[in-house]
Every structure is written in structure tokens, then in C-alpha cells.
């Protein structure tokens, strides 16, 4: 009797982690990605904080910064002096460019490790540190169980964790709540959402592939039109202004 009354009182969708087929699920805490079309497709409207986010690409380096920089700039601005840890970055991040896009270079901490086990260890240690803002790890050889461990560490500490893997990992199972496959076209990147708390997405989300100033410069070169005047700068803008 009492159990029936209980069932009538609680609607299933009011429970956490339960959502209707057509709707998006909810996330406890999210951080805006800085890309409005992507935010609209993500449950909770942004990157889930305290959860593993997988980004799958054919090559490890392209689009990473363009996709993640707005969110990283936001989290770095909120947490004073907390660094963003890069584990196993394929190339050197270039400070002056990142600083102009909101991520000051002094907030980077690069960890290089050749062995996959050492990378996993470094990633987990960084997640367990209290003073780290976000962790980006390139883990091409990680297995599902190892990723699960990282996911739990991120969950425990409430950290942003992005793991970059190659396209072959798309077929493997993963503990990540959000999995993205990023493909590049001429001037855009196509973000396919492989997994999210919600219905599967029909088509990819199209996002600009380059920073606004680079895109403006290229557009001015292509069309021969005068580029929109952006913020003041000395040497570099001369070419853009002459175009």
C-alpha cells in the first residue's frame, strides 16, 4: 500500500540520471564550451565538470585548442594561479598565441612521458592535486579500465578532464559521459557527438576551425575585402590592414 503511494508521488523523470528518450539528460555541473552550437547539443549546456570527456581525432594535434580554449580560459580565470596540466602533448603549445586567446602561458604545466603507464600515472596524480584547474591528456593507448580510473579521480575531485585519443578508439567501450569525434573540413571542424546523455545526434555540429583573427585575415585575403578592424596590434595587423 505504502509502496504504491510512493510510486505515485515520485515521477521517474524527477530522479537524477533519469531522462526521457527525446530529451537531454542533466549534468550536475557544467562549464560553457564557448561555442553556442555545441552548448545547445550538450546535456547541461557545456562540458561536464568532474567527468571524463573524450575527443577522438585522426591526428593528435589539430582543433584541440580551438575546441577547448574558451572553456579553459574561463576555468583559469575563475581559479587563481591554478595551472592547466598537459600530459603527453604532441607538440609544444605556443604561449603568445594561447595568451591572446585567454589562457596565459604561465598557467601551463607540460608533462612529457613516453610510456603509456607513466602518462596514466601523471594524469591521475594531476587530477588528485588540489591546485590544478584542468587536465588535458593525450592517451592513445589507454584501455577502458584505465580510463575508468581517471574518470573516477576526476569525479572525486571535480576536475575538467579531456582525453585525446585516436579514431580507432571509437569502437571501444569507454566510461566517458561525453565522447566527441572531430573531423576537419576546409574552414570548419565537424564535431560528431558519439555519446552523450541524450538522444543520438543526427548530424555533426559545425564550428569554426580557426581563431577569429586568423579567420578574418584569411577571409580578407580570399575575398580581397577590407578586414574588420579587430583589437589594436602593431606589426601583424599591417598585412591584414593592407589587404
Amino acid at each position, binding site marked *: 500500500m505504502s509502496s504504491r503511494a510512493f510510486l505515485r508521488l515520485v515521477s521517474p523523470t524527477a530522479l537524477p540520471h533519469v531522462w526521457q528518450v527525446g530529451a537531454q539528460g542533466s549534468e550536475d555541473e557544467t562549464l560553457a564550451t564557448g561555442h553556442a552550437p555545441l552548448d545547445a547539443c550538450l546535456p547541461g549546456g557545456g562540458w561536464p565538470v568532474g567527468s571524463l570527456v573524450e575527443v577522438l581525432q585522426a591526428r593528435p594535434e589539430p582543433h584541440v*585548442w580551438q575546441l577547448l580554449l574558451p572553456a579553459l580560459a574561463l576555468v583559469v580565470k575563475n581559479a587563481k594561479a591554478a595551472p592547466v596540466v598537459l600530459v603527453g602533448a604532441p607538440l609544444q603549445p605556443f604561449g*603568445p*598565441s*594561447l595568451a591572446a586567446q585567454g589562457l596565459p602561458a*604561465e598557467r601551463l604545466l607540460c608533462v*612529457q612521458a613516453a610510456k603509456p603507464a607513466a602518462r596514466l600515472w601523471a594524469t591521475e596524480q594531476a587530477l588528485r592535486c588540489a591546485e*590544478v584547474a584542468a587536465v588535458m591528456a593525450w592517451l592513445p593507448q589507454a584501455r577502458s579500465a584505465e580510463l575508468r580510473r581517471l574518470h573516477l579521480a576526476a569525479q572525486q575531485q571535480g576536475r575538467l578532464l579531456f582525453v585525446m585519443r585516436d579514431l580507432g578508439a571509437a569502437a571501444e567501450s569507454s566510461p566517458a559521459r561525453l565522447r566527441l569525434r572531430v573531423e576537419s573540413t576546409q574552414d570548419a571542424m565537424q564535431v560528431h557527438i558519439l555519446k552523450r546523455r541524450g538522444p543520438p545526434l543526427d548530424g555533426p555540429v559545425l564550428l569554426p576551425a580557426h581563431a577569429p583573427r586568423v579567420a578574418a585575415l584569411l577571409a580578407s585575403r580570399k575575398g580581397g575585402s577590407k578586414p574588420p578592424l579587430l583589437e589594436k596590434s602593431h606589426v601583424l595587423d599591417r598585412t591584414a590592414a593592407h589587404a
Partner: protein
Amino acid sequence: MFWIALLPTREDERTAWGWWALQFTPRVARVDEALLLEVSGSERLWGGRKPLLRRLIQSNQALAPVEWGLGATSLVALACLRQKMRGRALQVPQPPQDLPLDTLTAAADHVDTLERTGCRTWGDLRALPRGGVARRFGAALLDALDAGFGHRPERYDWLTLPQSFDLNFELPALATAAPELMWSAQRLLTQLQVWLAARNRGVLALEFEWTLDLRRLNGVKLPQHEQLVVRTAQATQDIAHLRRLVSEHLNRATLSAPANHLRLRSLETVPWGGISTSLLPEDNIQGEKLHQLVERLSARLGEGNVTVPVAREDHRPECKQQWLPARQAQAGAAPDAQSLYPTWLLPQPLRLEMQGDTPCYGGPLHRLARLYRVEAAWWEESGPALRDYFIARSPQAGLVWIYQERPGPGEVKARWFLQGLYA
């Protein structure tokens, strides 16, 4: 007078227990196998005898437990402790009178003789004529007996805290690999913690030194000792962090021969300000500090693999930032922030292959925009950097950042380099 006798269950921790006891009373002495404390001067400060004893024995979490005995004089306290250790009845009817003679150190040599005369307790011995006892057994026995009954003042060499920590520990077994030293190192670190707390200091650098068991190995003469220095960025009394750090260092260290002794010294300590606590939730985040993370990552992966960018004033992009070990360097802000720069930089500019006049990287590059010209570094011996920078599109790698090195006077063909990737 009120005395406490302590007997640590681990022999090597006796000194550390002495340092620990020094916070309760300045009168701590090592006598025979035990530690003796005279606490009548400070027992009111600690709220009486029982609270003092409870704090002394129970609040020390780091060290192994102790056995204890109490008495009005130091020898009675020691005798009670010995009674307890031998499993005899703790309560004797009248403490100094009825204590057995073998609990008195000065009488240890004469116990057999005295027992044959029917003299078994301190009271029996005291009842004997003093002149005869002094002639037969020496004055030292009478002196000790008087001190035990409280008729003579008791003087000892009181323990003091050393200026720096230095302890040598004999390994229970020969260590053939550095990680095997960890167990002993942990014992030493525990004692270091007691010393730091007693001195109210935080440690910045410490040194492990192990003694090698062999003088020569394969015909090569070996040094007598080998050292390992461990440093931390912020002074700490937290042994958990030091232990993990030492463990990482020992995992990378090698022993040139089996070791038999381990010694720990404190190289650098600073006055300890205590831990500042806060009630604000944002200050109370679970997890370790950043410098602890950096130290541990550097210890395992190597210092060159944990790096931060340090900005330099230079026009050549590869010199705009320098990657320095995070343990030593403070990262600096970039002076010239430009979002027209690429986000990834190649560690070294990559010489591009040419197809006719077109440079190739994953297919022929299509130049989209000329960015700017660099003329700098005329002071370098390798010659000045004369470069024209371009943004180009690669069929495979997307937008890339390339430059053309302007040909010198004798050269005809320009050389092309790839320096960055837009991502």
C-alpha cells in the same frame, strides 16, 4: 618528586621518544635501557599526573608504543617498569621496601651473594649494617640504595634536542636494491617528524646516506658511502609527502653494492610557521599542493619532463619561450600576445621538401597570407635570422605556419621551414 620510566618497544626509537618527552618536562634522561622523566615541576601544567601520563603515552601516533612505570624516585620507577616487563605483580605492598633486589642496577652483580644471605628486597639490604655493606659490595650500591629511597638527590645527564637531525640506522638485512631501503627510511622519517615537531621547524632538504658493505666490486674500488639528497619547495613537517617523494627518488636510485646502514641528516630547515587553516570552503579543497605534485612528477619522470614556459624577449618565435623544469623556474607571462600566432610550435623548425618552387608538408602547401618579416639575431654566430612568415594550407595538416629563409648573397634558392600548426 614524581618519576616516569619509559621503555620503547623498538630499541631504535628511544632517542625519538626522548625528544617527544622533552615537550612535557625538561628533565629527561637515558638510563640503562629506559628513559626517565622527572615531571613534578610540570604536572600541574598538564592537569595532573594521570592526564600527563595519558598525553605522554597515547597522543604520540607516529612512534611505536611504550611500556611505562611510575615511582617517587627514578630507581623506583625503573624498578616498577622492570617488574612489569618481567611479568611479575606490579603492585608490591610497600614500594621501595619490597621491591626485589634484581630490579636495582647497582645490585645486579651481587644478587646471587645477597640472596644466599637471605637478603631479597631493597628493605632487606637497607637493614644490613652500612659499614659492612660498603666494605663488601662497594659504596656505589649504598649510594644507589639511598637514591632509591629518596635520601640522596638524583642527577643525570639530561637529554637535549640536537641542533640538526642526524641518525644512523642499521638495516635489519643487507639491502641490495635502493627500494629495499624504503622501510628503514620510513622509520627514520618518523623520527625526523618527532624532531621537527620538537624543534618547531620545517624541513626543506634532507640527505640519505647509506654505507656500502663492500669495499671493492669486480675490481673497482667503491666509495664507503653513497648519498641521496631530497629537496622540497616549501618547508614541511608533513611526513606523508616526504615519504612519497623519498620513495620516488629511491625507486630511481641505484646501489653500487649492498648497503648495511642508512643515515638520515637534515640539511636545511627553517622555522615552522604552522599550518594556516581556514573556514572558507574554497580554501579547504581536498588534495595535495601543486609543488608536491610537481616534485613527485619530476622525481619519477625526470626534471626535464615536467616543464613550464618562461617568456623571453625575442622576435624569433622559437626563442619567445623557453621550457624550463617546473621545479626550478617560475613561469612568466608572454610579452607579445597575438592570436595570429599558431597554437602549436614545433620544437625545431622543420626543413620542408620542395616540389619546384612549392614547399611540401603532407602535399604541396598553398600559401594563404603573408604575415610578417623577421630580421633579428645578427649577434648569433650562425648568422642573422632573415625570415618571411606565411600562413599556408596543407592538404593533410590544415593551416600551418611556415617561413622562408631569405637567401644569402651566395645562395640562389630560398629554404622553407615549418614552424607551427594552427589548431
